[in-house]
């Protein structure tokens, strides 16, 4: 039992690494993709939109396999599984975050831009001081949902052999002829998502000082 829990702790650490690294890269990358999606320049906008369509329209599990194996088949180049998982997760989640950001940005009334403009703010000042803080407030609930999904999606990293929590639980389960490790893993995911939920609730409260 103790050995099993120790192994599962190790798996949890891997899952948490996938989780945090994905957030670290996908949250800002999503903003870049939104900028591309909303760009006035067609040669930027159209490829970005097609890219988003593909990423959001195909299974993450397929993207994991593609990112990990494609370089090998094309260039005979093999690389770290964990790195491949982070790349696939970051790109996939960035596209979903981009869609959320876009909704948030489009919900800001035109008057906010116009007031900023006549007051003499630069474009950058307008975006970072006036628009973005309001966008963050409006997108918190949708982003929270996405982050909860990410916690559970980290289990997909095992497709390309990353020894994350669920893979470890399955291994332990078949070694011990017991489903207990699987249920224990379930409890672990639940705890992580409880933490995520509490975190987002706090954030929402923190930003409720205005409407």
């Amino acid at each position, binding site marked *: 039992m103790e050995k099993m829990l120790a192994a599962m702790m190790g798996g949890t650490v891997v899952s948490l690494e996938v989780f945090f690294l994905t957030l670290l890269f996908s949250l800002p990358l999503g903003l870049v993709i939104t900028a591309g999606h909303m760009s006035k320049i067609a040669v930027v906008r159209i490829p970005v939109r097609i890219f988003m369509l593909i990423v959001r329209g195909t299974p993450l599990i397929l993207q994991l396999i593609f990112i990990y194996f494609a370089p090998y088949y094309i260039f005979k180049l093999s690389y770290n599984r964990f790195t491949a998982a982070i790349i696939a997760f970051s790109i996939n989640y960035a596209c979903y975050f981009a869609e959320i950001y876009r909704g948030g940005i489009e919900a800001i*009334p035109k*008057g*906010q831009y*116009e*007031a900023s*403009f*006549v*007051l*003499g*703010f630069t474009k950058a*000042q307008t975006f970072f*001081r*006036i628009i973005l*803080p*309001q966008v963050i*407030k409006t997108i918190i609930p949708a982003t929270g949902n996405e982050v909860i999904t990410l916690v559970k999606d980290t289990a997909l990293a095992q497709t390309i052999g990353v020894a994350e929590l669920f893979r470890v639980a399955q291994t332990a389960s078949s070694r011990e002829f017991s489903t207990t490790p699987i249920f224990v893993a379930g409890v672990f995911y639940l705890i992580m998502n409880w933490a995520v939920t509490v975190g987002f609730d706090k954030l929402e409260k923190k930003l409720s*000082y*205005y*409407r």
Partner: protein
Amino acid sequence: MEVITVKNIRKTFGASEILKDISFSVHTGEVLGIIGPSGSGKSTLLRCVTQLETVSDGTIKICGDTLVSGINADGRPNYADEATRRRIMLKIGLVFQNFNLFPHFNVMRNITEAQRLVLGTPKQQAEDTAVMLLEKIGLADKADLYPYQLSGGQQQRVSIARALALKPEVLCFDEPTSALDPELTGEILKVIRALAEEKMTMIVVTHEMAFARDLSNKIIFMDKGVIVEEGDAKEVINNPKNERTRAFLSKY
């Protein structure tokens, strides 16, 4: 001195011409009232002067700087360079119909943010200016509140203070009372009247005819993108010469 000179400006959106050959001027300390039916191009005119829109043709001069002068060989309006346009923008303020306060900033920060970011005013000085303005508009005790905690009239007064904080040479108002309940329009008109007494140069688009008459030095009546009648405020309102002006005024 002419603070604003507008000559023969045109504005088209696609195929429709919204402003047709508009000319007028405003002198230091003058108040220009603009009246006219909805859709006549009053907002578009203010937006051209405040650079929210670009004109299609014509000349605009503000405080000695030329914002735009005619069209180039390619048919595009000949606008001044970025630096000049920015300099002009800071000399002219705009108060919107629906206030457009920044909801995530409290009253104080709504008034200080542009001073600090745009003019580079030190924090203490920006706040002193804000306190002075808040006293002037009768909201000295509201500095820490957020816009949603204020009435429409109070929000509009804060937005006037926000514009004044940059010490513009000219202040434009686009129907400043139209989004307010009737009982709240008085407090806004009072603030604008006080500014007129201080000889603030202003352009005021309004549907408050009595207010326009008593406040303005000069009135322009616009309809369908043209200036139909202009002249001394009392003359235009009490004694309109043009048929369309008369028909419009009879509704008030």
